[in-house]
């Protein structure tokens, strides 16, 4: 929700970035306040997934200009792990499988790393089990998934739910959901959206990157941004998404 006077969480100014020598982002501006939900929409190749990877610090993407601050800190001076420790979270478009690392072990390792960072006590395996069994309800996942290797043999929907489980456990200040809706059937989409909604507070924020409007029926954005050619070409309220659904992207592209 939009709260007048809430603090700035993320501020991106004139961001330019390239991958493999090709410039993809050509001057992105975005400001996210605590409590807000933003949707970034656009056709394939518009730069929206690149934008989320650049914010999280993927090594293949190089910032060539502009700035991004996260709670006042220069985001690009931080390693990916330090961004995570500062409270940034990326839900991956294609979650990786990690055979040999159990889901619960990873969750606990990540959780305790963040606890230490925040000056809080680490949880031992038993305490953590209680916590994770509470959190897993958020995404209606079977606890048997905790004992399995991270994402190994998971269906597309299970992988996406697993990302949201990680978000639930790590409680980030800013979550970037990169095409979290892609590959989800309608039931899985509802569960994932319900999970995300239950995690929203006045102190955190969400940026959803999506191609389709349907996710926004379940997670209602305060702002909708349309990205095209590596820039945000239009910003509006949730009704902009409906307009895109009805009219497609071409009219905006022509305008840009």
């Amino acid at each position, binding site marked *: 929700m939009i709260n007048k006077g809430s603090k700035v969480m993320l501020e991106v100014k004139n961001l330019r970035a390239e991958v493999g020598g090709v410039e993809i982002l050509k001057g992105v501006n975005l400001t996210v306040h605590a409590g807000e939900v933003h949707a970034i929409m656009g056709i394939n190749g518009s730069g929206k997934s690149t934008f989320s990877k650049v914010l999280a610090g993927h090594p293949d993407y190089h910032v060539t200009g502009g700035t991004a601050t996260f709670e006042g800190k220069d985001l690009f001076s931080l390693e*990916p*792990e330090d*961004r*995570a420790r500062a409270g940034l979270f990326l839900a*991956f478009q294609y979650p990786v499988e990690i055979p040999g690392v159990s889901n619960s072990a*990873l969750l606990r390792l*990540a959780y305790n790393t963040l606890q230490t*960072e925040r000056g809080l006590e680490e949880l031992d395996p038993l305490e953590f089990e209680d916590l994770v069994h509470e959190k897993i309800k958020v995404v209606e996942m079977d606890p048997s998934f905790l004992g399995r*290797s991270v994402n190994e043999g998971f269906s597309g929907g299970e992988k996406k739910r697993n990302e949201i489980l990680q978000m639930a456990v*790590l409680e980030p200040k800013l979550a970037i959901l990169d095409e979290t809706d892609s590959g989800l059937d309608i039931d899985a989409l509802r569960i994932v959206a319900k999970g995300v909604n239950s995690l929203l507070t006045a102190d955190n924020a969400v940026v959803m990157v999506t191609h389709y409007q349907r996710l926004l029926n379940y997670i209602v954005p305060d702002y909708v941004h349309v990205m095209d050619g590596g820039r945000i070409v239009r910003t509006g309220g949730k009704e902009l998404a409906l307009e895109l659904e009805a009219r497609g992207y071409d009219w905006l592209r022509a305008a840009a």
Partner: protein
Amino acid sequence: MSLTKEQCFEQLLLGKAVKSEGWLERVRSEALEHAATLNFPSARHDDWRFTDLSSLFIHGFESVASFAKLTVSDIGKYLIQGSIRLVFVDGCYSAELSDLNNAGAGVTVASLAERLGDELVESHFGRLAPYKTDTFVALNTNFFEDGAWVHVAKEVTAPIHMLNVSTRRNSPSAIYPRCTVVMESSSRATVVEDYVSLDGGIYMTNAVTEVVLKDNAQLHHVRVQREDKSAFHFGHCSVESGRDSVYSATSIALGARLSRHTVHVTQQGDGAEMCLDGLALIAGRQIADTHTLIDHAVPRGKSVQLHKCIADGSAHAIFGGKIIVHTGAVGTDSAQSSRNLLLSDKAHIDTQPQLEIFNDDVSCKHGATIGQIDQDALFFLKSRGLDEERARNLLIHAFAAEIIDKIPVPSLVESLGQTIFGRISGDRMSGVR
């Protein structure tokens, strides 16, 4: 003083003659003759062409003249609770450190030297190990001080732990562990062959193991080589598997400056199943070589093999895995996979899976992959707050865990897991990489 290859070999032949009676004395002297003729394998030999033995040749290895007295607390961290334990110190059996209390009726676990009068021992010893064609096996067969005799006639749940401990010596020494395992019909057991060093120092372990599985017998054979990084390790294992028997091997190579492990499994009975899994995890200047041969001689055999190498620093890992399916071995089902992880630009892995098939009624597949740490997985873990070091270690450990987790002794899985975690991070911190 640096020796030449010839001098090194001469020195080995001058080792201490171990006296035995009757049949064993004949086997010993025959082996010595073969050793002298065979000499060290030539670098042109197909099975040895990737393996650089030059770091071995410069040393003169002497037989162990006096044996160290150890206490159980010296070897405390290697003990497996509830096991039937045979301990050898520098190749010499230690009754004080061994614990045979868990061996019930139907299980004989003893020092080989104490059992030489047993006809069973005589009929099995030296029958499978190729002491006429393999230099290292020949040297072992002549010079071994003592060994383990394991005879199982029923189902044993307690793991049988053969712990080979080496201690510090003033000059390079040669140690010759020996082990003979006979699994009678329908028996079941787990045998853990374990090679550890209490101190550093240059020495050579040259071990030979022979395993016989009679019909329907099942053996899980675990082999852990975690010797000091200045040690040299040669190990040979010959296995004969009877009808419908199941032989599962899990071999872990972590230690030694240079290690070479050869395995030769012969399917002797219809429907026998053989599973060979291996892991070599090395760094620095280590060399680890594994050569396996699975011989399908009779019908309906099944073999499954997964071998993994992880090489960091300027280490060199070698895998040669040959599977032969003979004319009569119809209905053979075989799958072999070699998976490898290179952790540095200077590390080197040679892998050579080989299939030789002489009949049409078979299902055989094999494959090999070599890769580096998955950058996407690394980024994912970092994006969850793990630092680079932690994330890399987790991924390396996970790659290794697929093999380690096959060991049916939980406490050993746990301690190896910790060793590996320690080793991965330790190597990095000490700048080996």
